[in-house]
């Protein structure tokens, strides 16, 4: 999980996003435990309070749940929910790209052409999941 401290996005949201992506990609499967607060904080070099906030956010979403004394676990429908959330993340990036294109004075067709080229690039690289 890569945290970008230079970004304006709050770190706890970046962490939440990172965990969602990890769940969507199958790094953490439903029923499996997430790293403890301490381990996660030290691993990604972030204040434990911030990690706690990220965990709280994900718990609120229903992606993870707490088991008393045992820690936090990925929920059963975690993967599906994570993938849809990941979709929101991609949408945000696309919105930014469209804004950038607009600022540069490009037309909708020009932006669409660039987007198609990008999709072709993704298919070339290939992905195990469609």
């Amino acid at each position, binding site marked *: 999980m890569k*945290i970008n*401290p*230079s*970004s*304006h996005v*709050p*770190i*706890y949201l970046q962490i939440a996003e990172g965990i969602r992506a990890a769940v969507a990609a199958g790094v953490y499967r439903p029923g499996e435990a997430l790293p403890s*607060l*301490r381990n996660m*904080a*030290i691993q990604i*070099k*972030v*204040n*434990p*309070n*911030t990690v706690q906030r990220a965990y709280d956010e994900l718990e609120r979403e229903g992606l993870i749940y707490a088991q008393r004394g045992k820690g936090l676990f990925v929920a059963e429908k975690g993967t599906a929910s994570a993938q849809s959330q990941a979709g929101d993340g991609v949408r945000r990036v696309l919105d930014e790209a469209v804004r950038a294109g607009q*600022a540069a004075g490009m037309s909708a067709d020009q932006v669409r052409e660039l987007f198609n080229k990008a999709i072709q690039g993704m298919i070339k690289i290939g992905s195990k999941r469609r």
Partner: protein
Amino acid sequence: MTPQKDTSPAIEIQGLTKRFGRTVAVDNLSLTIPRGSTFGLLGPNGAGKSTTIKILMGILSAMAEKLQVLGVDVRTNPKLVKQRVGYVPEMHHIYRWMRVSEVIGFCRSCYQPWNDRTCRETLDLFALDPAKKVKHLSKGMLAKLSLLLAVSHEPEMLLLDEPLSGLDPIVREEFLEGVLGTICSRGQTVLISSHMLDDVRRLSDTIGILNEGRLLVQDNIDHLLTTTKRICATLKDGCRPERPPEGTIWQRVNGREWIATVRDFSPDKVQQVSALDGVEHVEVQDLGLEELFKDFIKGQRVSK
């Protein structure tokens, strides 16, 4: 009279002023830091960060209305403050002729309590050779030794004065891990002064920006970053910007481009700017910590 140890703020400064001859290093500073938080004190070189921290540790004299650390007045009882605070200075002046084991033994005799287990574990974690003399330690190892001494006596608060300056990336990571480890175990308050903004962003919940001895802003990091934005406006030919929106901390005009960094951002402020006669196009940008920091400093310099 027993001070309310659990509820009093970790640090309470009111009206702190410190002069070195004619230079004012700290100018009527007031700052309150609650317990349990990690506070990042940011500022350019010479802003007064180190001076403030040394004053809090009772090793520099100063004038202040109130100067309390963990509920204790530093001026009347500095020994108690030093007992309860773990301090890592910017420059390490540990006796160069002592060996690491001797330094630990010396410090151990000064502090009550001293956690031998924490000391041993940290010694292993940092891979410090107990038989090595301090003068043979590299800068990174010295910083780690300082941190070891600071955490081994189970302080209620850590004061870190530019602890990462001059350290290579690997040592910086080890140091951060050491600090995070102790925050996780003991939940203590941490004040870290630095201009390594990325590391401060990772570690802190709250930041304060100091410049020329004055506190420009103190706020929760996330709140500050989400409520401070840059309004970029394109001006019509020959037009000059009128009054900037409320809460502008810094603005600049570059040809047709008018950029204003605004606190407590709201869409109304964008409307305000759009509605101005000379403005053609308006855009809003988010700021990272580095840009926000620079804008605050530049804004204060301009306003002088």
